């Protein structure tokens, strides 16, 4: 089992970002090195003026899914932002913005929340991923 795992975050809805944050924190707790690469709508959710907003849920969530997610949150579940912050405090978690997506969304690095460590291209991401698994969310 490789000691590095890499997540490509594409979707920008709160449910997928929550799942990705949980996977990241779990890997960090096991001492794995974790790379998170932000593309498209996931990157948009990390804009510092939007990160705390409601990003909605996947279409398949429906009304029942919305209610279930709200109930978990009301019970005190940490947000995906806080979960990622704790994962970064705990272990070796590097969060990078995809440079193509930065162009697509017309973003500067200063537009991003400080959780994001930098901007890189797909080649640098693959090098960081080493021989570890890559998961697309």
């Amino acid at each position, binding site marked *: 089992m490789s000691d590095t795992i890499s997540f490509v975050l594409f979707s920008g809805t709160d449910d997928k970002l929550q799942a990705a944050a949980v996977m990241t*924190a*779990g890997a*960090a*707790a096991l*001492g794995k090195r974790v790379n998170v690469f932000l593309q498209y709508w996931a990157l948009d959710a990390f804009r510092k003026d939007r990160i705390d907003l409601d990003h909605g849920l996947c279409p398949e969530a429906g009304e029942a899914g919305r209610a279930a997610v709200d109930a978990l949150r009301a*019970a005190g579940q*940490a947000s995906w932002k806080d979960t990622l912050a704790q*994962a970064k405090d*705990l272990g070796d978690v590097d969060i990078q913005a995809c440079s193509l997506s930065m162009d697509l969304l017309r973003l500067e690095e200063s537009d991003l929340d400080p959780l994001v460590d930098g901007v890189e291209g797909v080649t640098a991401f693959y090098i960081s991923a080493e021989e570890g698994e890559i998961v697309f969310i």
Partner: protein
Amino acid sequence: MAALEIARTVDAKGLSCPMPIVKTAQAIKDVPSGALLEVLSTDAGSTRDFAAWAKSTGNELVEQTVDGGVYRFVLRKK
């Protein structure tokens, strides 16, 4: 058997996965090697999670009990 001497307790009751493990991994950094860390959790996945985490990280799961929906784990730091 004499009661085990606990160096530190992590109260993770009410926290959902993966926070009990995240808090534990953070807390175990601050206890000396060989010392015991106690964790309290209400997350139903905890039993398997703590066994797996202990095995993977080399910390020893010394004790695990459940009482009224509260899981209690005692870990000895590697």
